[in-house]
């Protein structure tokens, strides 16, 4: 049986842990709200962009931009891995990393080299441990405040490398925010750009076919050539926002569970403490009674 003092120290330690997890939960909640607002602010832009791009892509041919043409032989793949900088968010990072790991393994078996760009420290650390080549790392972005320019810089690099034939495909792994309780890792090919269809459905709903009689300046192909790299940035920015929001949601849940676990532990320990106290009182009483009996005798 643990001594009274030991149990008491343990209880106060668990209570302190609970204070921390509770505080982290609240911080994550408020950050989550901010991240969600950012996602909402981005939505009109993303929708409009997809609309215009979709109908433009329909008009222009595949030859409009080298970004649209799949390479015959894929030798090297660039993966943009979005994870968080910090832990304590449940299985959030390990899910993302295991997805990337599985993908990398599959490709290595086909003799395709896989290189990484990392958003977030957890993914970078994993890349280092596993010995993958790291093209670039961006720390302190996911889960923090960041602007569109981050996506532009990283996206530009990905596009440049693709055009220079440094690698033949670019994928990104990020966490999609489905609900407070659910975030799923997603893998998406961003280069070469897959045929874009998002605008099509919408166009059918409208009375006039969208963009059918638009005048384009400069030419359709030039416009498309200008917009496609931006499409990559937009996707990347969206992925970063999703990952950030997911991280906060995951941390919120993890910390919520931890707080509950702390409560359970405090309950169990208090019980143990009371039992220990009771038994020590009983022992004391026995001593006293025993002593009194001895004196009498």
């Amino acid at each position, binding site marked *: 049986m643990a001594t009274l003092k030991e149990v008491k120290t343990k209880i106060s330690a668990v209570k302190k842990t609970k204070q921390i997890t509770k505080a982290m939960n609240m911080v994550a909640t408020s950050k989550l709200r901010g991240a969600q607002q*950012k996602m909402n*602010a*981005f939505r*009109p*832009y*993303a929708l*409009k*962009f997809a609309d*215009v791009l979709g109908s*433009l892509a329909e008009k222009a041919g595949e030859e409009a931009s080298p970004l649209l043409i799949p390479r015959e032989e894929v030798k090297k793949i660039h993966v943009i891995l979005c994870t968080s900088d910090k832990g304590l968010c449940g299985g959030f990072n390990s899910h993302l990393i295991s997805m990337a790991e599985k993908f990398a393994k599959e490709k290595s078996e086909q003799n395709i080299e896989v290189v990484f760009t990392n958003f977030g420290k957890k993914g970078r650390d994993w890349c280092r441990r596993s010995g993958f080549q790291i093209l670039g790392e961006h720390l302190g972005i996911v889960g923090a405040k960041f*602007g*569109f*320019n981050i*996506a*532009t810089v990283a996206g530009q690099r990905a596009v440049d490398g693709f055009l220079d034939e440094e690698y033949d495909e670019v994928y990104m792994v990020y966490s999609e925010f489905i609900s407070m309780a659910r975030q799923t890792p997603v893998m998406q090919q961003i280069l070469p750009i897959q045929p874009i269809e998002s605008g099509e459905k919408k166009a059918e709903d409208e009375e006039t076919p969208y*963009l059918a*009689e*638009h*005048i*384009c*300046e*400069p030419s359709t192909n030039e*416009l498309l050539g*200008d*917009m496609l790299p*931006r499409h990559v940035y*937009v996707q990347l*920015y969206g992925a970063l926002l999703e990952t950030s929001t997911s991280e906060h949601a995951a941390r919120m849940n993890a910390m919520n569970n931890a707080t509950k676990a702390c409560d359970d532990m405090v309950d169990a320990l208090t019980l143990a403490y009371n039992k220990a106290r009771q038994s020590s009182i009983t022992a004391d009483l026995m001593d006293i009674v025993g002593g009194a009996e001895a004196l009498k005798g």
Partner: protein
Amino acid sequence: MAGNIRLEVVTPETSVVSEDAQIVVAPGALGEFGVLIGHTPFLTTLKLGTLRYKDANGVEKCVFISGGFAEALPDKVTVLAESAERRRDIDVERVKQAIKRAEERLASKKPDINYERARAALLRALHRLKITEIRR
């Protein structure tokens, strides 16, 4: 005037302008163009520069635009820009600092500097400053 045209300026981070305008003048890639209500559908990329418009009361307003494109429809102009700022939101002090920083970077001639980016930053900052100096 037949009526007002809806103007929307959206960036990935926020919606900058959403109001009715009498006329919109934007810096297109092939030259500045004006849009009134009933414009033929038109799509163009935009240069770094100033978007000007007259609001429903005829007050002229300016918005700084960088890296974007515009779509004009008969009743609506949508501008998607990587960054956009209304004149009144431009912080002159910050812009001046940005200019100084960019100039220093360009002048320093260190090999590890991305000249393209520094130059672009300088251009953007100069444009912002120009907008604030336009007569009100």
